[in-house]
């Protein structure tokens, strides 16, 4: 039996299983939180009862973190150069000697209660892209629960833009469907199937000729995005066993967003850029593209969980017994940085968004459980993948807390005997020096961030960029408050079975600056 035909293939949570499978899955849901809390609490207890051992652990941890930071900085720099190059490439020229006219791009644009202007900006970017619009299917996917607003937006978009696309369809995802969790996954799965029934089949469009881009509603495609995507699709060794991942730039409203939002957004971009240089560790995230054929074979995105954007990769990975990859496009799409009417609300929204993103930890039990059940995946693939995923979620939740808060703990809790040792004096200095070296990477971060900024809508001089440089001193704050803590929050919720639902990030624009 193929793995996708097993009852395990689209598990949302432990309660979807029974018996020993459920117990096992539940234990795997507890695992990431257990590891993270053991690290943090263990460091605290060790600082009290065995401060020398705790100091050794902290020095080893700091060294690991420094080396990892240097390693990732190199990847960041390489991807920066790659993106700049890809933005300069004439992708139409690159395709000129290839046959690609048969390929159709289906863009699924789910929305809920976002303002019409946000949806419109995304749709306009599709029209401004340099791909034959008659080879584009626009699927506007609204939610029935959005009420009349959803319909009003769809009517406006259809009236204004539908004629410019090869195909246009508006779908309304019904409420309260059995086995579904309200959210993007269930909406776009419904939309994709509607598109198949109402567009692909009636027009005799081959599923293998359709590339689906599941975009967030605020996604603005760069002009050559679909040409770049087409080129990568055609040159991929196996395009039906590959997903295609762009790099999210949060530039739509970057000049309006407060510094803390810009830094959080920039950090997310940098992480995706680093991952693009490590495709063997890359999973899909947010806006991504995949062949319709591959989606159709596995029944589209999961409808019973939150992190459908990354889960689709793992579904496809297991469906193909590990023979599935993500092709990094090293090409950007632009999205919104978090912005709300007040700074306080903006920060709350950033926290919630990052908690939803780090809720991707719900994939970890799915992955490990799949590795146990799927006997067709090579053993070392399982080992390496598990190690990468476990380390990734563990380091997200613990590293900033360890580095910025716990480095001095043995000195405080270790007692007078420990405080007379050379080790106790050197420990804070080591931690401080390692942090200083790592912070030098912020210079690179600032340079990269500025290089990808759009022009300021009102002024263009040296001083307009100054806040974009100085903001990076907020990094210790943002990676802890909007990185580690929401990560720990998400893992703890999973640990205690307090499953999260889908949270829609409110989109807000200051019209005068955008």
């Amino acid at each position, binding site marked *: 039996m193929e793995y996708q035909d097993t009852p395990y293939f689209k598990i949302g949570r432990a309660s979807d299983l029974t018996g020993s499978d459920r117990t096992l899955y539940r234990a795997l849901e507890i695992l990431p939180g257990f590891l993270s809390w053991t690290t943090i609490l263990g460091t605290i207890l060790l600082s009290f009862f065995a401060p020398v051992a705790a*100091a*050794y652990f902290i*020095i*080893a941890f700091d*060294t*690991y973190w420094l*080396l990892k930071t240097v390693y990732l900085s190199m990847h960041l720099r390489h991807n920066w150069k790659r993106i700049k190059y890809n933005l300069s490439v004439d992708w139409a020229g690159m395709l000129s000697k290839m046959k690609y006219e048969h390929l159709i791009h289906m863009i699924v644009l789910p929305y809920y209660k976002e303002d019409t202007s946000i949806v419109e900006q995304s749709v306009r970017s599709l029209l401004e892209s340099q791909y034959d619009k008659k080879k584009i299917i626009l699927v506007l996917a609204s939610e029935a629960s959005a009420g009349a607003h959803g319909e009003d937006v769809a009517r406006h978009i259809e009236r204004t833009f539908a004629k410019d696309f090869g195909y246009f369809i508006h779908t309304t995802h019904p409420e309260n469907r059995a086995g579904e969790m309200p959210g993007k996954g269930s909406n776009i799965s419904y939309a994709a199937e509607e598109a198949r029934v109402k567009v692909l089949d009636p027009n005799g469009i081959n599923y293998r000729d359709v590339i689906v881009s599941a975009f967030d509603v605020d996604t603005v495609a760069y002009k050559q995005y679909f040409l770049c995507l087409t080129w990568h699709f055609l040159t991929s060794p196996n395009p039906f066993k590959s997903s295609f991942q762009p790099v999210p730039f949060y530039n739509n409203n970057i000049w309006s967003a407060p510094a803390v939002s810009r830094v959080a957004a920039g950090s997310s971009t940098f992480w995706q850029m680093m991952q693009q240089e490590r495709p063997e560790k890359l999973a899909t995230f947010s806006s991504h593209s995949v062949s319709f054929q591959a989606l159709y074979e596995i029944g589209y995105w999961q409808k019973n969980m939150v992190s459908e954007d990354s889960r689709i990769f793992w579904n496809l990975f297991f469906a193909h017994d590990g023979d599935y990859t993500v092709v990094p496009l090293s090409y950007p799409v632009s999205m919104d940085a978090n912005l709300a009417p007040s700074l306080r609300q903006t920060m709350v929204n950033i926290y919630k968004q990052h908690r939803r993103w780090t809720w991707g930890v719900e994939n970890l039990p799915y992955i490990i459980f799949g590795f146990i059940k799927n006997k067709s995946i090579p053993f070392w693939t399982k080992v390496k993948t598990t190690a990468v995923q476990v380390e990734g979620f563990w380091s997200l939740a613990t590293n900033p807390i360890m580095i910025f808060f716990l480095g001095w703990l043995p000195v405080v809790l270790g*007692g*007078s*005997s420990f405080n*007379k*040792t*050379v*080790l*106790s*004096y*050197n*420990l804070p200095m*080591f931690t401080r020096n390692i942090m200083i070296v790592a912070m030098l990477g912020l210079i690179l971060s600032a340079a990269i961030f500025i290089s990808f900024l759009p022009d300021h809508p009102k002024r263009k001089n040296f001083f307009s960029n100054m806040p974009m440089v100085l903001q990076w001193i907020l990094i210790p704050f943002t990676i802890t408050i909007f990185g580690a803590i929401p990560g720990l929050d998400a893992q703890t919720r999973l640990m205690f079975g307090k499953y999260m639902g889908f949270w829609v990030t409110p989109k807000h624009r200051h019209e005068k600056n955008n």
Partner: protein
Amino acid sequence: MLLTLFLISYATGYRITNTLDFTHTGGFYISSTLSGSDIFVADKFITKTSLFQRNVLVQNLRLGSYDISVSKDGYQTWKKSLVVYPEKITEVHPFTMKSSPELNRIFPFFVQGEGASSTILVGTTTKGRQLNSEYANVKALFATTTSNTSVITVQSATSTTRTLRKIVVTEEKGALRVSWNGDIQDEPYYFCQNEVCQNTIVMNIRERVLNFDFFPGRDDILVVSLPSGLYAVEIDSRSSQNMQSIVEEKDIDFRIEKNGTIYIKKASSFFSVAL
């Protein structure tokens, strides 16, 4: 892994010698309260303290005894010989008194000068003068033997005991003993040497102690009144105890006010000491 092992070894105090051997090292943590003072270890200049950096960690010292000195122009030099132990940091808390501390006489009255901008302190007549409240306070201070910085727990005809936090100083027949009355893990640094601790320190003062108290803001230095004058003496007996003069005059009594001001009494006059 190798880098981590190297860093842990280095952090613990291991060093590689010229002959590529591993050796244990230790060091000193010198905490000076005086900015602008020069710190020497084994006659080698280490650093000059500043307003923002009065503490210095000296590492990479092999096992053995080192002479430490702290000096500054206009101040008495502090010197001590201390031992470095492997993988340990020896705490050092030097103190330095001015070579000539300024004495400011406290007059009983003061008068406003014409023009109301100057204040003239005069001592002898009462007509048209205002009582100096500071004089009254100091006079009251000297009327008792209580201290505003430490607690006299026992006072008899033959002995006096003062306690600051849990450090107990007892004077009996003109000699001083210092003991610790708290938990052993909280014992002040000067009671212990390489984790071997003593319960009591006998102050090595050759003259008879007439009066004593804790130095303002310090629990490791005593102010002692001796027949030859007023002195600051460190309790730390890990090597010879430094004793620095405050006022080298005979028949001096002193009290310490709550705000840390030292007042001395010479004959019937009172003075504050500018440290």
